């Protein structure tokens, strides 16, 4: 097991290096002035451009530039925006709210997604199955920002069940935004659970379990479901990427003062250092979460070789 974990972490290193290089290349190397959009809606002053070029070593060969950039990143230096605030600090004071929001979304995804998928899977072709298939298709088709606006309008304003904004970021206030954020992943998780369960219910081992006299509940709940959920776990890890992109939109709609809203505000103020710094952190978080899920996958599925 230890070997497996170490190998996974080692495999992760080239991807991390590659991803940071790609981001670096997209931001600094492509033709175009990297100081564009660093100073709001006006061109940067020559003094700022000079300072920026010096800070990011833009006069050095690009491999050196990248190495120095990576060095800064490893030390947690994401740069200072033009308000003079350290981007890392801005993120540090905001991450608890976004974390809460993400936790609600993931909990929603796991509880509702998996139960809907199981219900549909064991009643394949029946009404519940069709209901789940159609409603997940609808959820997949509605972009998160449309869903957010509609949810705000219906549940916040018309029905008054939930607070319309979540400025303080309490659990209750974050409930509706969290569900909106998780909606897309709920739909995919439900579909994935259903497909896998339907496939596994046909498998020989489930028939054997029934033949030897296990109750259907146990045959499905313990034998089929456990195997069906393994891909769903991977999906939930992968969905983390969409979740973080969605957080930018959700936090904007519900006025949640988290990392997503910070990114949105930085985009509108054309505060490039903040946008790039914060997005890089999110990509990092995404990669680390997926590494953890990968390791967990190895624990859950004994068929994955550990040597």
């Amino acid at each position, binding site marked *: 097991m230890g070997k497996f974990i170490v190998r996974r972490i080692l495999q992760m290193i*080239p*991807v*991390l290096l*590659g*991803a940071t*290089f*790609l*981001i670096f290349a*997209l*931001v600094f190397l*492509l033709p*175009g002035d*990297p100081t*564009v*959009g660093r100073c709001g809606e006006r061109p940067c002053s020559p003094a700022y451009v000079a300072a920026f070029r010096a800070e990011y070593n833009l006069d050095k060969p690009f491999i050196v530039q990248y190495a120095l950039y990576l060095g800064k990143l490893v030390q947690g230096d994401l740069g200072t925006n033009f308000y003079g605030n350290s981007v890392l600090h801005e993120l540090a004071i905001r991450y608890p709210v976004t974390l809460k929001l993400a936790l609600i979304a993931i909990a929603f995804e796991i509880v509702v997604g998996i139960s809907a998928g199981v219900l549909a899977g*064991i*009643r*394949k072709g029946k009404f519940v199955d069709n209901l789940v298939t159609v409603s997940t*298709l*609808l959820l*997949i*088709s*509605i*972009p998160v*920002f*449309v869903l*957010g*606006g*509609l949810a*705000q*309008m219906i549940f916040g*304003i018309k029905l008054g069940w939930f607070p*319309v*904004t979540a400025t303080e970021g309490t659990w209750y206030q974050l409930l509706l935004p969290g569900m909106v954020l998780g909606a897309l992943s709920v739909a995919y998780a439900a579909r994935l659970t259903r497909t896998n369960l339907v496939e596994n*219910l*046909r498998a020989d081992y*489930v*028939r054997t379990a029934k033949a030897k006299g296990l109750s*259907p509940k146990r045959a499905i709940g313990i034998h089929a479901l456990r195997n069906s959920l393994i891909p769903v776990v991977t999906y939930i890890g992968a969905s983390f*990427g*969409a979740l*973080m*992109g*969605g957080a*930018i*939109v959700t936090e*904007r709609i519900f*006025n949640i003062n988290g990392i997503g809203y910070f*990114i*949105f505000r930085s*985009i*509108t103020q*054309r505060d*490039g250092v903040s*946008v*790039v710094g914060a*997005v890089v952190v*999110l*990509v990092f978080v*995404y990669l680390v979460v997926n590494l953890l899920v990968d390791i967990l996958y190895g624990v859950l599925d004994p068929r994955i070789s550990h040597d």
Partner: protein
Amino acid sequence: MTDTYGSNSQPLLPEGAIDGIVRQPPLDEQSAAPARSLGADAWEAMRRSPLFWISAALIVIFVLMAAFPGLFTNKDPYDCPLELARDAPSADAWFGRDLLGCDVYARTIYGARASILVGVLTAFVTAVIGVGIGTTGGYVGGWLDTLLSRTADVFFAIPLLLGGILIMFTFPSDYDTPYMVVIGKVVFALAILGWPNIFRLMRSSVMQVNPLEYVQAARALGGSPWRVVTSHVVPNSMVPVIVVSTIDLGAYIAAEATLSFLGIGLRPPAISWGQAISEASGLGYIRAAPHMLIFPSVFLSLTVLAFIMMGEVVRDAMDPKLR
């Protein structure tokens, strides 16, 4: 539940299937019903699905709307009497008017062009890149395949929306940027992050097709690698790519709208649904003028739905396992 027991009868089928000769229908049966190709089979299955006709109709309507908005409205989307701002739907303006008094119906119709263009172009570019590189990796194999796969892993590691934000932020557009240049930027941003999806799919399906007899035969007959690949390997590996590209097309439309919503995709004077929804989602406006939000939202969601549904119908029809 019926499934579980239904599978009891399944072992009967493979007995004939293993043999290979038994599976061939007897000659007289063949002449009675001509053998159909997989494509014809799939078409038969799709023809009977109402979902196929619904999504096809929606796609035709939205593509027409994108190509010839004049067919649907004779109003000018840029004709905005400010004194009528936020008017509710009426006989004059069916969907009401937006913040600047523009006709929401006309703007919604004209907004289709951006979404359809970005969706179709991105799906096309990712398919071309993904199929090209995927076929190379899957067919040639060896170190080249490893290199290509690891490169794709790196691109795959960056979530679509986050990467899109970075790229669009690095290449900002302003008021004077030509329409097609802005569209091109969005397509570039989405395609550069989206191609690994198609690459992985194509690579694995090429690797499945590669060892089959007809490919070996083509090679044994002296076909050049180019000929073997273009006339045997690629046509027989394309089905999953077509299906996934159609589904992804819907996702790209949603991604473009999200970028525009965040203010870094299409910007005025270009008209897009994402922008319209962004303008309408201020809290005060949702309360006072919900029509500004609802109509573009419905159109956007229906477009995404149409492509995703079409992709799923085609997939179900092409996949014999699901029949």
